[in-house]
């Protein structure tokens, strides 16, 4: 929104921030008029300049990120740009944390306890499922329990 000017050329609804547009769409509810629905939704053109991954609809980007492991999101994906950081911080990403068998997937010398604590902190006590098979200890379980107390 910071780049907003009064220049009419900027008055482009398609360029509206994805979450603002999503909020508008959510108000539409179950619209009977499919035509309206189709006109309104995301008027992308084939202009290659529009092939912009940052402007991809928020729920699509979130669907992609949800297929990645938490550690990938934490260590690289969220640093790509502000829009991706915001999506990564979105609570839903951290409702389920799956960290089982990390050592097999990542051939790095990582502190899994620290990563796990970071992920739990990220969830802002919305965590509902966690898999820490192979590396849990009492301290970690206490930490998770304390953080997720209702």
């Amino acid at each position, binding site marked *: 929104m910071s780049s907003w000017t009064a220049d009419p050329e900027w008055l482009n609804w398609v360029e509206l921030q994805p979450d603002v547009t999503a909020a508008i769409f959510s108000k539409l509810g179950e619209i*009977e008029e*499919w*035509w309206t*629905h*189709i*006109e309104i*939704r*995301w*008027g*992308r*053109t*084939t202009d*290659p300049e529009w*092939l*912009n*991954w*940052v402007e*991809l*609809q928020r729920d*699509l980007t979130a*669907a*992609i*990120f949800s*297929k*990645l492991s938490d*550690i*990938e999101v*934490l*260590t*690289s*994906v*969220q*640093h*790509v*740009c*502000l*829009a*991706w*950081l915001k999506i990564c911080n979105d609570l839903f990403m951290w409702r389920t944390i799956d960290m089982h068998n990390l050592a097999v997937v990542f051939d*790095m*010398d*990582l*502190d899994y306890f*620290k*990563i796990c604590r*970071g992920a739990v902190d990220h969830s802002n006590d919305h965590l509902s499922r966690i898999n820490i098979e192979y590396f849990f200890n009492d301290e970690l379980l206490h930490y998770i329990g304390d953080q997720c107390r209702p």
Partner: protein
Amino acid sequence: MSTAATADASSSGDTTEGSVRLLTLQSEDGEVFEVKETIATQSVTIKGMVDDDCATSTIPVCNVTGRTLAMVIEWWNKHEIGAVSNEKELKEWESQFDTIDDKSDRDDVYDLLMAANYLNIPTLLDCCTSAVAEAIKGKSTDEMREFFDIKSDFDEKEEDALRKENQWAFEN
């Protein structure tokens, strides 16, 4: 009533094929496709239009180019019940969609992702999001920026702070 499934639905001219209605879809760039209703209703959006009796004339698919729409129709044909004899064959066929080797694949998947979202085709959407997720895996932040042509909009301070904030992930 079901007709024998064929993988080819390109027969134009007829308005019906047996008892199956044909729908006319028009892409953003004006290409017209005739598709069996039973196939096209894999799209939840189109199914809604059919159920609401809004699919009687040409259906404009305004955000999707003819090239992409042709790929979507190919997807529908393969996913019609009975079109492919076994799951393994289908998975093998799908693999052409779910791997991104270069930027041209990347652009195709982007278009398919938009089309799958717009037309609401859960199977295609799932395949495309997996493809992008696979492309992200194993890439560093800079590699991702390069691959997806994304410019960092963090200033230097923020970038430093972010790296520091997540330093814990790399500490021994």
